């Protein structure tokens, strides 16, 4: 699985950090998403998918290899 984020459209809700703290963080300055793990291990896949569904601005994408 590959995860990518669109920081331009991020609205800094914090939902990704709440849902998958191992994969996402927030910028200290403006709260925008920081991707910690672009190729997460198997056990984090479901958290990654959850983060996609909870993101209010739909800026997280996952693709399966």
């Amino acid at each position, binding site marked *: 699985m590959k995860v990518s984020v669109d920081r331009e459209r991020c*609205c*800094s*809700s*914090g*939902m990704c*950090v*709440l849902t998958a*703290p191992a994969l996402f*963080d*927030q*910028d*200290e*300055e*403006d*709260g*925008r998403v920081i991707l910690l793990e672009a190729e997460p291990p198997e056990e984090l896949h479901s958290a990654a998918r*959850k983060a996609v*569904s*909870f993101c*209010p*601005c*739909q800026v997280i994408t996952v693709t399966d290899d």
Partner: protein
Amino acid sequence: MTETLSSAITLSPRTCPFDPPPELIEQAEARAITPVRFPDGHMGWLITGYHLVRAVLADPRFSARQELRHAPIEHRMVEKGLLPPAEPGMFLRMDPPEHTRYRRLLTGQFTVRHMNRLIPRIERIAADRLDAIAEQGPPADLVHEFALPIPSLVICELLGVPYSDREVFQRHTATLLRLESSLDEVNAAMAGITGYLDELVRSKAASPGDDLLSGLIETGELDQGELVRIAFLLLVAGHETTANMLALGSFALLTNPAQLAALRENPSQIEGAVEEMLRYASIFQIGIQRAALEDVDIDGHHIAKGENVILAVQAANRDPERFEHADTLDITRPNNGHLAFGHGVHQCLGQQLARIEMRIGYRALFERFPDLRLAIPADEVPMRSDMAIYGVHKLPVTWKEVKQ
């Protein structure tokens, strides 16, 4: 589907204090989207289905701009029908890019990490309130002694607004939220709060403190009017919402003893319990409003440019197509995904703060008073059916045991 009958936006009394009003439930059961008449005669739409509400909130073809809105409440109608544009700084009622500019100046202050740093302080505030309640002895009104003071103290500290001035803004906020208030009363209350904040911002500019407003002033990005309106937005959005969730959620737990017992047995479930409380016990009376920027077809309905939609989050959060046993309070509900904080670019800026306040508040309350119960029959608890933000006016409780 032209055969669906239109109805007016209604704010009828509820039969169960935690459920949406019966008319709204009926509309939601009949269809996910219904034509509705606004008080000025405008024909718009009421959307109650979870997936549609979510889709519209994420759709840039639907605008939050105030000047495209028809007043949903008769008393707040302006003569021309449409409302005036939002004043600079009122970004809740703007679209990107104006909205983005303001929001980005604030989001760094409301990150998950930033809010987590406030936990010890919020725990202290909650403990102090509970000490005071225990000392006074039973009965106590949880709204007055607990639910309102905690978020008010927190947002005041965060913004740098003296809590001792709360009389001023709490009174005006009550006028703003009272559905029966006339436009004149609303305008006077607005002027009251903004006048107060105008002076506060000036004094902070002269002698800055270690708080959010002083920080915003120092960025040099905002003029006086913008600073005042942002302060207004944060102050009002920051305490009445959480206060009513704290009180309404406590009421819901006190009247669902099995759920309360489950939470007491397993306090680590508090995070899920808070999400469930937000889904189940909604403080929305009307819903979130948007206007179509162009013609949009959704779910077989044609929404014409300019038409207003009311997104009834309180109904969407009970949509049986999205939630199993939607009308049951279940603190162990997985994959909640409620819309209590909205969705899309306006999703609540203060949601991580609200979550922390609720987690700390409920937990501390039910730990301190293990046998807490209502001091009056549940059907005598006065509900805020007359206010734009729903909840309880009072929540009289009593107890025998106090834990330290």
